[in-house]
């Protein structure tokens, strides 16, 4: 079982990322390092993301306990651009599966010399759970756990914002839609507050807001016009179909009437406001096509940046691991030389030495 130092279990003893589970508890410099590294993977002229040998010889296992196409694909592309050996597994799991088999699966795959797991799971806290049961040298990267966190998605959103606004600092951001069930929104809110956005608003019907939104440090708006007034960034969240069947909202049509992003509404935001969406978009439900395809939309850029940001996170984690083993080796060497200087600590010569 890996036991990590410090209150934040995703950091190693040097305070650097060992796993990437959530943005909660991370510092400004952790996030900036990810954004700067992602920048370095993008050719400034061609916008092309080059293949680099950073993770050559490393094995990354993508474990998807919940179906996903885009996230999985961008992870795979990112891993391949880093020259890692990549294996992806879709694991259909029943909610009542015994712990034995769940952890046995993990340990079996770990025994195949896996260096890093990228895990998506339907349960909140699952990534943390797995990170507590992998070997100390194995890394866990959260690709979405239940309604808890999706930190790489939030980081690519921050990257996109930085690309267009220069900095997240002092911006007003509105997140519109299903906040209650969204792991993406939870991570976005944490990223925005760590990067010191001036104001974070969440906009939507009461049924799609957590009961204690104040606990997240956001301002709640139930009125769309008020909520997006004068903001720099609008992030639309995808509305899941099952929200209608559980009586949280009446219909897509009414939702669009109240919260759909139209050109008229977009005009209430700052003139240079950007429109984001983690995708896939429901045209005519969350967003009007004219806006989705319009000049202020950066939705497709987000997908491209997702590759660079995921490359950044993985390469940072692996270089932190290298740095840590070097640090430990140096510490051991220093200790050994101290032991030599101190005659009392010197072990008696063994027969083999004499």
């Amino acid at each position, binding site marked *: 079982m890996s036991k990590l130092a410090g209150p934040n279990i995703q950091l190693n003893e040097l305070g650097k990322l060992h796993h990437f589970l959530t943005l909660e508890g991370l510092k400004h410099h952790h996030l900036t390092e990810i954004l700067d590294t992602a920048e370095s993977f993008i050719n400034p002229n061609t916008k092309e993301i080059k293949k680099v040998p950073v993770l050559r010889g490393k094995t990354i296992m993508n474990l998807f306990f919940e179906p996903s196409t885009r996230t999985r694909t961008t992870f795979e592309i990112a891993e391949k651009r880093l020259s890692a050996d990549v294996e992806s597994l879709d694991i259909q799991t029943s909610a009542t599966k015994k*712990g*034995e088999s769940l952890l046995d699966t993990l340990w079996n795959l770990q025994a195949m010399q896996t260096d890093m797991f990228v895990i998506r799971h339907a349960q909140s806290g699952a990534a943390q*759970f797995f990170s507590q049961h992998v070997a100390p040298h194995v890394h866990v990267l959260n690709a979405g756990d*239940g309604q808890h966190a999706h930190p790489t998605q939030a980081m690519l959103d921050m990257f996109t914002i930085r690309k267009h606004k220069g900095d997240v600092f002092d911006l007003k951001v509105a997140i519109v839609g299903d906040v209650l069930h969204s792991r993406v929104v939870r991570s976005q809110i944490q990223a925005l507050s760590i990067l010191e956005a001036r104001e974070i608003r969440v906009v939507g019907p009461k049924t799609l807001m957590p*009961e204690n939104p104040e606990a997240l440090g956001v301002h709640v708006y139930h009125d769309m016009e008020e909520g997006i007034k004068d903001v720099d960034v609008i992030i639309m969240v995808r509305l899941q179909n099952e929200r209608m069947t559980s009586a949280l909202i009446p219909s897509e049509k009414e939702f669009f009437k109240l919260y759909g992003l139209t050109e008229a509404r977009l005009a209430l935001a700052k003139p240079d406001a950007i429109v984001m969406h983690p995708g896939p978009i429901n045209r005519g439900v969350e967003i009007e096509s004219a806006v989705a395809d319009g000049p202020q939309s950066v939705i497709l850029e987000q997908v491209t940046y997702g590759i660079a940001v995921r490359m950044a996170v993985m390469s940072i984690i692996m270089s932190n691991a290298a740095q840590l083993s070097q640090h430990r080796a140096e510490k051991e060497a220093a200790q050994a030389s101290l032991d030599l200087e101190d005659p009392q600590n010197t072990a008696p010569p063994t027969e083999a030495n004499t």
Partner: protein
Amino acid sequence: MRLVIKNGRVIDPSQSLDEVTNLYITRGRIAGIGSDAPEGFTADQEVDATGKWILPGLVDLQARLGEPGSHYAGSIASETKAAVAGGITSICCPPDTSPVNDSQAVTELLQRRARQAATAFVMPIGALTQGLKGERLSNIHSLKQAGCVAVSQANTPIQNPLTLKNTLAYSSTQDLVVMLRCEDQAIKNGGVAHSGPVSSRLGLPEISASAETVALARDLILVEESGIKAHFSQLSCARSVEMIAEAKKRGLNITCDVAIHQLHLSEMDVLGFNSLFHVSPPLRSMQDKHALLAGVKSGIIDAVVSDHTPLAKDDKLLPFGESMPGISGLETLLPLLLKLVQDNGLDLLTAIRCVTQAPAEILGVQKGTLKPNSSADLSIINPEGVWTLSPETMVSAGQNSPFHGWEFVGQVEQTFFQGRPVFRSAQEAKR
């Protein structure tokens, strides 16, 4: 076999007794209490309890004993041993066994196994409905004849109000305590954590307080209508305590209990996704916790239970929401109560009453008392004994406790069941 336990501080709420004196035991029963022995009593054996407390054996209204079925860890033999290690000598076991205890056969099996173990008194609770499905009535009369002291739905309350209404009307003529846990499954909606700041942060599916209070309101009205004596199990919300107080004031014949962990833990403990804190009903807010403790202090909450749920390691070795809810709690019921006495201003006699006299009266049994001629079930406590809970020293087959590492003051040294020693602490055994 005649035994005298000398110079102990005898604490028995059923006799409003708290004094240093002697306790005499003849043939498994209490022969008397006082400085002078009862007439004709000569002791075969003497136990010196100077500086120690003598408590009636505790009565636990809700503890799972692992049998029958493999749903829970342990067996009647292992779990009654855990009980007496915690000073508990009378245990009600809920019907959520496998098969469900909705028949004479299962009730008799439980009693037979308990007699074989001969470590503690086991009182089966029968299922209110067949298979606990909340649809068809169990043979409640037959269950009573077989020895059930109460009927309940364990953790699967009846959802259909008409079924509950009929169930209560039928039970009202059977002279059995009906135990009700209040939880509206529709509002619960698959939730796993109290809906509050913590669930909002962690994205854990939420269970709002209304899942309990809506069901409680409905149940109170149906209980009042049927005129039945009902017991409400494992309250978790501040509002529930208010509703119970109000109903008692109206004259309803009701009692209620709270699980001991609800008086020590809160939603804040869930922050690390640690599945050992996954319980049902969920750990709620600090405000709820304080209101529950105030309810115990004022007597609105009659009894405190362990809600002992021994689980195999694998059942907790899962992400929070997929893990099985429950705490292995027999060995921490008394220690956690004493902690409330030491740290939170709970009166000692009230604390002991909640786990002796009160639950015995709820069931209408002669337990949890040291009155003459009652069964000599008691424990000797070293009030200064300091110890720490750890998986290695737990007796229960389920080591799923969030209290590992907690330091307790007050240690059970010996427990007697029907006048026989059934537990000795490691320190005591060394002497």
